[in-house]
């Protein structure tokens, strides 16, 4: 099967995907357009997390925090100062990036799993802060309401169809941007760090700075997704930025194939659209979902469409466990 798929030239794939993207909304109803809209938002989140987890190899299970910072920045500034939504895109990216800079700096030296738990911690701290309504800014558990709609050349974006084109334009931009990034010097440096940080440092790569850069860029893009989410929903509350959201984003990256852009899109499909298809049998839905996550990892631990670079890394890894020393007393 793989062989036949590979026989199709990549350009044909892009053309087909592009066509489908344009035609899709005219073939379906509002419900399916909205499914595609949220698919797009999650794809953005997956792509942004991919920079941190996939490229730089930093385990981040608290990505919802950056998403939340972006969304709340947009929501608060738009509702208090009535700044148009789309103008707030760079600002949301900036605040999320700044926030990432502040929290990532002291924790970057932590080893994989510890980073994982610390990011969970940050994610929860952000959510709890939002609930506790500091300075009366975040509206507590109710969240912020009455967020404006974006407008573009005089057209107020309100209908699912309008959002569809806005969201997918952003997705496309992010795909192109991350693609460039992946192939740049920075992308290769990340790749090197992920495989062997010590050797990378020896080659003159500023490891700490590069890791920080991955966090900052990833967070900025999550902030952009937050901006769009806030304007799409018109109301946001801490319920939308729970640990569960971080789990979904993380699983998108791993299920789809770490470090691979097409993989992220497939992963988003698996984590978001498939459960949507099974909405009919509500109560057992999550049970199947959990089982599917395990099964996926057993059958394809490298993800559905892993990147070439990671694929090589997987094969080369002969020892399953890192030989780091354990506690003497245990």
């Amino acid at each position, binding site marked *: 099967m793989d062989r036949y798929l590979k026989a199709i030239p990549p350009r044909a794939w892009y053309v087909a995907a592009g066509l489908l993207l344009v035609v899709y909304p005219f073939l379906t109803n509002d419900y399916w357009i909205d499914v595609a809209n949220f698919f797009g938002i999650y794809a953005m989140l997956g792509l942004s997390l991919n920079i941190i987890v996939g490229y730089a190899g930093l385990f981040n299970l608290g990505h919802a925090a950056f998403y939340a910072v972006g969304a709340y920045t947009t929501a608060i500034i738009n509702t208090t100062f009535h700044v148009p939504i789309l103008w707030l895109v760079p600002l949301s990216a900036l605040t999320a990036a700044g926030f990432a800079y502040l929290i990532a700096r002291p924790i970057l030296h932590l080893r994989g799993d*510890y980073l994982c738990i610390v990011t969970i911690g940050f994610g929860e701290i952000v959510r709890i802060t939002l609930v*506790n309504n500091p300075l009366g800014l975040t509206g507590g558990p109710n969240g912020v309401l009455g967020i404006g709609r974006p407008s573009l050349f005089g057209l107020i974006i309100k209908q699912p169809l309008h959002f569809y084109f806005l969201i997918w334009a952003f997705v496309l931009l992010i795909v192109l941007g991350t693609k460039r990034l992946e192939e740049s010097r920075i992308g290769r440096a990340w790749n090197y760090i992920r495989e062997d940080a010590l050797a990378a440092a020896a080659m003159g790569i500023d490891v700490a700075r590069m890791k920080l850069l991955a966090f900052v860029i990833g967070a900025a893009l999550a902030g952009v997704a937050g901006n769009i989410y806030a304007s799409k929903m018109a109301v946001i509350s801490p319920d939308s930025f729970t640990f569960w959201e971080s789990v979904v984003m993380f699983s998108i990256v791993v299920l789809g194939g770490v470090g691979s852009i097409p993989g992220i899109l497939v992963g988003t499909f698996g984590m978001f659209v498939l459960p949507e298809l099974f909405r009919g049998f509500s109560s057992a839905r999550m*049970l199947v979902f959990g089982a599917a996550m395990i099964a996926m990892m057993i059958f394809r631990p490298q993800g559905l469409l892993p990147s070439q670079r990671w694929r090589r890394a997987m094969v080369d890894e002969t020892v399953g466990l890192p030989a780091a020393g354990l506690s003497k*007393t245990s």
Partner: protein
Amino acid sequence: MQEFLQQVVNGLTVGSVYSLVALGYTMVYGILRLINFAHGEMFMVGSYLALSTVSVLGMGQVASGSLGGILLVFLISMTAVAGLGVLVERVAYRPLRRASRLAPIVSALGASIFLQNAIMLIYGTRFKVFPEKLIPQISWEVGGVKITLMRVVILVVSLLLMAALYTLVQKTQLGAAIRACALDHDTARLMGIDVDRIVSLVFIIGPALGAAAGVMVGMFYYQINFVIGWTYGIRAFTAAILGGIGNIPGAMLGGLILGVLETLGAGYISPGWKDAISFFLLILILIVRPTGILGERVAEKV
């Protein structure tokens, strides 16, 4: 002062539950370098099984269930959950032993979601209530501090179980094998240790201790629901890291410290910020002393 002492007593009770659950995280991490996200669910399943046993045995009818009956509840729940632990390891973790580090995290999250929803489907969505008179309602007042019997039981049982585990790991041959596996799988295998068996053993001990904690939480608070695995799990994991992950005395110490600090934070600062305080503390500890209180060095040299 009276208030402060009462808070410390409150904290020690929750803290010893965290310690028991933390042991499961710390042992699995020590052996497999895996954050077993499904471990919190073991605790939860233990609690539910205790409830089923109690109702099957009809212990709700008898005023204060007999000591033997209660021991039986512990035994059944711990055994069954130990079996579940081994099963989860076989199905969700063993096939991934040599995969990248990311895959087991997702698999563990999947196992957690699965177990939680399985319990929800079996027992229903509403919370379940333990019979009221299972444990005699005795309480003492020491210098204005109220101490109930169940608080004493939780602390004593936890300390006993932890002491037993510590002896097992430190003083027996089996314990030496566990320690060898924690250091290096391949060398352990060369020394003639059946690593898979040791891994299974760890997945028996950890979940059994978690189940014991689950049983006591059910008896103490009366009511359980299918999401307690997550709330207790994340704190217990925090406790394990606080004490130094992979380190058994560390998990015990971490649990008690977290329990007391969290309680004081909730009492004197604000209950709304309680979890934020414990996470903040965790991050602070990891930044200042990345090894945890008693643990290994975890930072990479960069």
